[in-house]
């Protein structure tokens, strides 16, 4: 399914300074649905080119990284368990950069 991923607040530096990525991600073979948990590991493997520890900690995003799914805080949609759909827009913003 097609997704738009956006990296901001400095996170774009981890993926060749490209902010917006239009990508095709399929759910894992044994699962029918695509969850954020899977998307994060997909991003880790396919988009992050350096310093993955700036983006991930354990199996979730590093504290201080905000996630918006269709302009909505992912804390409201179940974080890692959020099920993604075609054409969803996922934004990752680091808050750890200077002010």
């Amino acid at each position, binding site marked *: 399914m097609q997704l738009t991923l956006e990296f901001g607040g*400095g996170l774009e530096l981890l993926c060749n300074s490209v902010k917006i990525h239009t990508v095709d991600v399929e759910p894992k073979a044994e699962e029918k649905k695509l969850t954020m948990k899977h998307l994060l590991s997909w991003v880790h493997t396919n988009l992050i080119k350096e310093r993955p520890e700036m983006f991930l900690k354990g199996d979730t995003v590093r*504290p*201080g990284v905000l996630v*918006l799914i269709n302009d909505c*805080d992912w*804390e409201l949609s179940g974080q890692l368990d959020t099920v993604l*759909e075609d054409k969803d827009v996922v934004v990752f913003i680091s808050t750890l*950069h*200077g*002010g």
Partner: protein
Amino acid sequence: MMAGEGSAAKPRGGRLCTICNGRRAALKRPKTLEQICRECFYEVFEDEIHRVIVDNHLFKRGERVAIGASGGKDSTVLAYVLSELNNRHDYGLDLFLLSVDEGITGYRDDSLETVKRNEIQYGLPLKVVSYKELYGWTMDEIVKLIGLKNNCTFCGVFRRQALDRGATLLKVDKLVTGHNADDIAETVLLNILRGDIARLSRCTSITTGEDGPIPRCKPFKYTYEKEIVIYPYLNMLFTYAYFKKLDYFSTECIYSPNAYRGFAREFIKDLERIRPRAILDIIQSGEDFRISTFTKMPEQGNCERCGYISSQKWCKACVLLEGLNRGLPKMGIGRTRVLDNERDKDTRQTNGTKSIESKQCGTLDF
């Protein structure tokens, strides 16, 4: 109003805003754990800052106020919100943007472009003061001479004074900075870790330097970084595409590349994850610490060379500058006092390895 391209896709989770009970919730407020929609978010976000300004008597009608603008997220949002509130509530303030050009190619020149866009967008006059014109040196030139050791010391000392000098040139009554609740909580912790009781006692004050030439204040003292970061992303005043141009500048300083990898900042974020109110609790602790009134405050005089306030014969910037000009750049760095040593050590460790703090570029030193 248009929601912009960003929300073209279907919303996830059908919860309604706990304030208006009508629209779909868009974020969870760290401060209150309320789930609210974007419209209510702007309202409470801006109202809270208005309350902070009013309750703490930050400004008086007719005052000229400079906003320290780096082009980063905090100062960009601060400039926007402050000019909104000034209009909406008729504070009667003359607002200015004040930027410092350290002379760092590829970093500051880009971020200054962001500030220049803000100048046009918010209609606020911009003043840029540069290290080159004030001190005769750019950071590029300083780093060429001294290398990547102690460069943050120079930059921090020079910036602090540059902001004051710029504010004087603008003839403003006050300088506001974009320090947010996370910054202040981090500063409280760092001052404990470093043993700096004097800074610990004043780092939570919303206004500082009232006895100095230009008082500084922090309207975002109680504002969570999360909300500041999310604010422009949700702000319906800009369509998604328009907002692109407004994006704050978020590239790291090239001379302190790991500046944001601090232990303390990471610790704050870890805390926030399991207990969001911890950030405000730390600030509360900072305000409540029982520190006996000072006996040992150094006497404030003026620098014999440049006239800037200083407890010594020469101010710190003049000492550093003299060293640079005489080709003795080590002059004035550390060794004078224990606390300086500790600070120095913390800073020294930043190149390559983790340090305890996140922003040593003088921003914490207020």
